[in-house]
């Protein structure tokens, strides 16, 4: 029986030496990454890291607090626009602008959290969805924010060091990502995180145990929006150009997909989801250049479908992968991981 040798064991970051080892390996890998891979992959890592931030934040809301959001692209947009505007119009330094942008997004999250207090299920879904599309519509109308033409990001300088290549930006993004992920992980292990889960599982009971529903629900919204806002600010500098069309409903749906397919209610799950699905999203458009498969698909298209529409195969594959994940592993990629672990534990029996 696992007896309480020390109370701290359950909550500490590295439950065993093995995890410390793997964490160090991971950290070393992350440090060396830009030197191991071509620039494009560094760019991709930045892109994925940013998705990780959003999805980890979204998971705090969806996975832990049980509130659905189809409007995270809105917070993301707010973060991106606020960062650039604060820098170019108000002359904020980057990090300050980024944090302020996160806070502005959080303020919007708080506001959205208020009507969300009484809503659930599809009602909440549509309200948040409405928020997402409204925000981008409004941004698209504000000339100061570049309207539909979009905005270019200003030059990025941190404490005198210009960061204009993807490699330089990589370290900044990684530091922020790791910090935010650890923060989220700690939140979920302490009082606030428990309150979130309690609200999700049995909100009446949570209330009678002293959890202030208004406070914690809006806090979940604000926190999650903060993550999206910070990620949005970073995203503006990964792309170096933003326009309202980027922050479409599809993006919100995509965030949610990453969170759910990765596995809700865990911190590792969304990370896995963000990595796998972002990668798929970027790489599937090359599906026709895979040797043999591509030729076969072209052949198939020529005889039964249309060659002009052949690129749409990526949707079919992407959709099918989503369905497969959810059908075979309702807990998402994280569930898969747990199962594999269980399996190997008993290996070779």
């Amino acid at each position: 029986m696992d007896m309480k040798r020390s109370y701290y064991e359950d909550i500490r970051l590295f439950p065993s030496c093995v995890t410390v080892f793997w964490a160090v390996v991971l950290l070393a890998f992350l440090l060396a990454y830009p030197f191991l891979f071509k620039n494009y992959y560094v760019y991709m890592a930045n892109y994925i890291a940013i998705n990780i931030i959003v999805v980890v934040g979204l998971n705090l809301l969806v996975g832990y607090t049980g509130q659905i959001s189809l409007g995270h692209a809105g917070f993301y947009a707010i973060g991106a626009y606020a960062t650039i505007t604060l820098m170019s119009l108000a002359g904020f330094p980057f990090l300050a602008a980024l944090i302020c942008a996160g806070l502005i997004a959080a303020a919007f999250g708080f506001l959205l959290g208020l009507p969300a207090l009484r809503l659930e299920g599809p009602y909440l879904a549509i309200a948040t969805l409405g928020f997402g599309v409204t925000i981008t519509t409004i941004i698209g109308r504000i000339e100061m924010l570049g309207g539909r033409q979009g905005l270019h990001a200003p030059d990025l300088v941190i404490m005198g060091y210009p960061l204009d290549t993807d490699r330089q930006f990589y370290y900044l993004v990684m530091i922020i990502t790791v910090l935010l992920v650890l923060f989220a992980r700690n939140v979920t292990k302490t009082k606030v995180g428990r309150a979130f889960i309690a609200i999700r599982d049995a909100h009446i009971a949570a209330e009678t145990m002293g959890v202030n529903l208004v406070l914690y629900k809006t806090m979940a919204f604000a926190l999650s929006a903060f993550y999206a806002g910070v990620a949005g600010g970073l995203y503006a500098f990964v792309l170096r150009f933003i326009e309202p069309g980027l922050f479409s409903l599809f993006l919100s749906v995509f965030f949610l997909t990453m969170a759910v397919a990765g596995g809700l209610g865990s911190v590792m799950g969304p990370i896995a989801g963000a990595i796998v699905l972002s990668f798929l999203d970027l790489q599937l458009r090359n599906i026709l250049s895979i040797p043999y498969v591509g030729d076969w698909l072209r052949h198939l298209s020529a005889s039964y479908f249309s060659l002009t529409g052949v690129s749409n195969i990526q949707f079919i594959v992407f959709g099918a992968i989503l369905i497969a994940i959810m059908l075979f592993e309702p807990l998402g990629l994280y569930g898969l991981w747990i199962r594999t672990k269980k399996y190997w534990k008993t290996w070779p029996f």
Partner: protein
Amino acid sequence: NAEVGVTDTEIHIGQWSPQTGPAAPWGAVARGTDAYFKWINANGGIHGRKLIHHYFDDAYNPAKTIAGVKQLQEQTGMFAWASGVGTACGLAVKDYLMENRIPWVGPSSGSRHWVDPPQKYLFNVYPLYLGDAQLLTEYAITEMGKKKIAVVYQEDDYGKQGLEGARYMLKKHDMELAEAVPVAITDTDMRPHAMRLRQAEADTVLLFVTPGHVARVLGTAKAMKYEPQWMSTTTCGDFPLMIAITKGLYEGVITASFGMMDPTGNVGEVENINNPKHELMAKYKKEVFEQFAAEDERWGYTFTAGIGFVEPLVEAIRRAGRDLTREKVVAELEKMENFQGIMGRINYGPFDPQDPHCRIGQQEIFLQQCTADGASKILTEWETTKFIPKSE
């Protein structure tokens, strides 16, 4: 050879386009380019080198455009970039391409952003939307004697610059715009828009929207018994297509055109994209389209534009000779004067950061009117339009 993207036998050229998503109809541009390059290669290539065309699907999403451009540029190495659909997508990669001094020729949208401010390595081909609007407005006022002109515009560069061009021309005539109706790209219900136009009693309506929206606006207005003179842009100039998707309502609509048929000396005559009188077009149809396009490809404006937008690039590569470098290509492009393929005449000049005209390329267009069977009645000669700089 030291230049990126050029080997002894190959020249790598990249392009992005939406093959999927709501903007997928524009994907035919890249497929046109592709067929054109294949045709060139089949005819011996350029100075012994084949053109290797890498086009990828970005689904009209700037984020994916950036990713794809970086991937191709950094992994395979592109010598130059051709065309590329979408203003936002182009804007997203513009800085990257320019900072790396990679030539980019013929973005397939008529946005002022490509030339204002001009960029050394970016050569515009598509006549600006500002020009379409000017010519259409001018024609409506002076030739047709219209009094109340309204604009339906998409809420992006395309629509807004069209609106700006129309306003510019109306001001010259001391007239006011009767109504400006914005359309969101996601709108499918055009009844409110048609209502607005009818309320304003506009006798002429300029449509700066996609073909799909045009079809819906025309149909809805017709059901309300509102039938003004409709006008539209090069974007909606594919008459056979428009006649089909409007079930014939497109008859009589006037649009601007950037080429594909030759108005010179033919004014008042009827031309047909399927049996063009334009010699080069006829040739392309027979040799490029019929041999190298996919079986289900449609011979239409979008496809042919894919050829037209890259003709200057191919020409410049040809002129640069066997010893190919980017600088040489740029130099050749700058020297280009009155070059004409299937579009209008194209002129560039030595790079001058103050003068957009050195990169604007084509500045002339003409007007055509749709006949009942989808052919074009040509209304004007080539007309040179004026560049309107950003107002701030």
